[in-house]
């Protein structure tokens, strides 16, 4: 019975591969200074380029469309955190966080690119407004490029 279940599970969702939590925690620690504790109660799966964060180490034995949240994509260059992961976990970050003023927040939400003076490393950063996480931005040569998913953007009309 148990054997049968684990067999059907592995063939059902073979495209979701369990990966080591420490590996993920290390990546987020080195980029955002997050404590490994932030990831303690979750398990991580890789499917194609995306990493999914799910509450349980065992996936339920059904054909799954999703397993929790997509938190990052692995690519040739640096890995990219998703806006939704940052909105959930970003409050634990201690570096590469940029606090936007009202104008900055508006431009970020419009999906814009703008100059900014901030103490950031090049690459993906966490954009916040009044202490709350807005989402992911790319910092490059003094400019901030909003990475807010298209479906969340709103045109900039002040």
């Amino acid at each position, binding site marked *: 019975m148990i054997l049968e279940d684990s067999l059907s599970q592995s063939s059902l969702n073979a495209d979701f591969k369990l990966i080591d939590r420490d590996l993920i925690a290390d990546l987020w620690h080195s980029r955002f200074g997050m404590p490994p504790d932030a990831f303690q109660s979750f398990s991580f799966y890789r499917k194609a380029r995306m990493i999914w964060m*799910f*509450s349980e180490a065992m996936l339920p034995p059904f*054909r*799954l469309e*999703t397993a929790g949240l997509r938190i990052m994509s692995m690519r040739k260059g640096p890995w990219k955190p*998703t806006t939704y992961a940052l909105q959930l976990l970003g409050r634990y970050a201690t570096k590469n966080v940029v606090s936007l003023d009202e104008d900055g927040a508006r431009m970020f*939400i419009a999906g814009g690119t703008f100059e900014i003076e901030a103490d950031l490393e090049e690459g993906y950063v966490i954009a916040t407004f009044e202490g*709350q996480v807005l989402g992911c931005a790319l910092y490059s040569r003094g400019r901030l490029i909003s990475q807010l998913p298209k479906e969340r953007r709103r045109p900039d009309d002040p």
Partner: protein
Amino acid sequence: MDHLDRYRRIIPDYPLFCEAMIQPLPVCVRINSLKTSADDLMSRLDKARLSYRRLGWYRWGLRLNGIRPGLLIEHLMGHIHPQEESSMIPPLVLDPQPGEKVLDLCASPGSKTTQIAQMMENDGILVANDPSPGRIVALRANCERLGAANVAVTRYDGRAFPRYEFDRILVDAPCSGEGMARKDLTVLKRCNLKRSMGLQRLQQALLGRAVDLTRQGGVIVYSTCTYAPEENEAVVESVLDRVRLIDVDIPGLARSRGLDAWDGNIFGELMGRCARYYPHHNDTGGFFVAKLIKR
């Protein structure tokens, strides 16, 4: 509205009901405790000088005055979710706990799924099922925006959901939607007895499958946003030999009892344990909610 005349006998204060039906539905949001706290969220609304009122019966629910919630920055940050007040009832009755295995059998677009996820504190397993590919897009989008990390989405016909043992199952069934007519009166044009009887077959099959999939002693909540007894009491009746009915009564919300008979069918007095929520009682949409324990 003529269609609703068939309920003149069963809906208390029918003229007040009719009056309420033509009033606009209040705009409500649920605060997402996975990402913020009620105090933080309200102080942000205060700072923006937005007008709102807390629901008396549910600490995560707010009524907004003259605000389109989809336009608020709190919406894109996933701190709030627009959700009709009475739609917040079934998850409360389901009472899911962190660490449990829970199934939301008819889940899209995920208002109740994400409410259940927050009640479970992103812990345990919440399977959110819906067969409609189009509607699953909205379900997935809401789960992502609200940060639900314990949700696994599946796409089965709920009548044939694979065998498993869940602690709790919500069956928020497809229905004729009469209770949402306050938002959109044209809903009623499509309502008739024949359609309700067709839906009843689907609803009975869905609820029957949910009982199969629940562990002994586990909880099943059956809900619809319609008044038609054919889609409510008559559906609950079809599983009565396999479950016990539990009284549904939420402090702070006025409810009418489920019907003991309708149109020549006798459901019995026990059916009074189900709850009917009417627009003129709490100024909400309409809902039917039954709570069942598997024997």
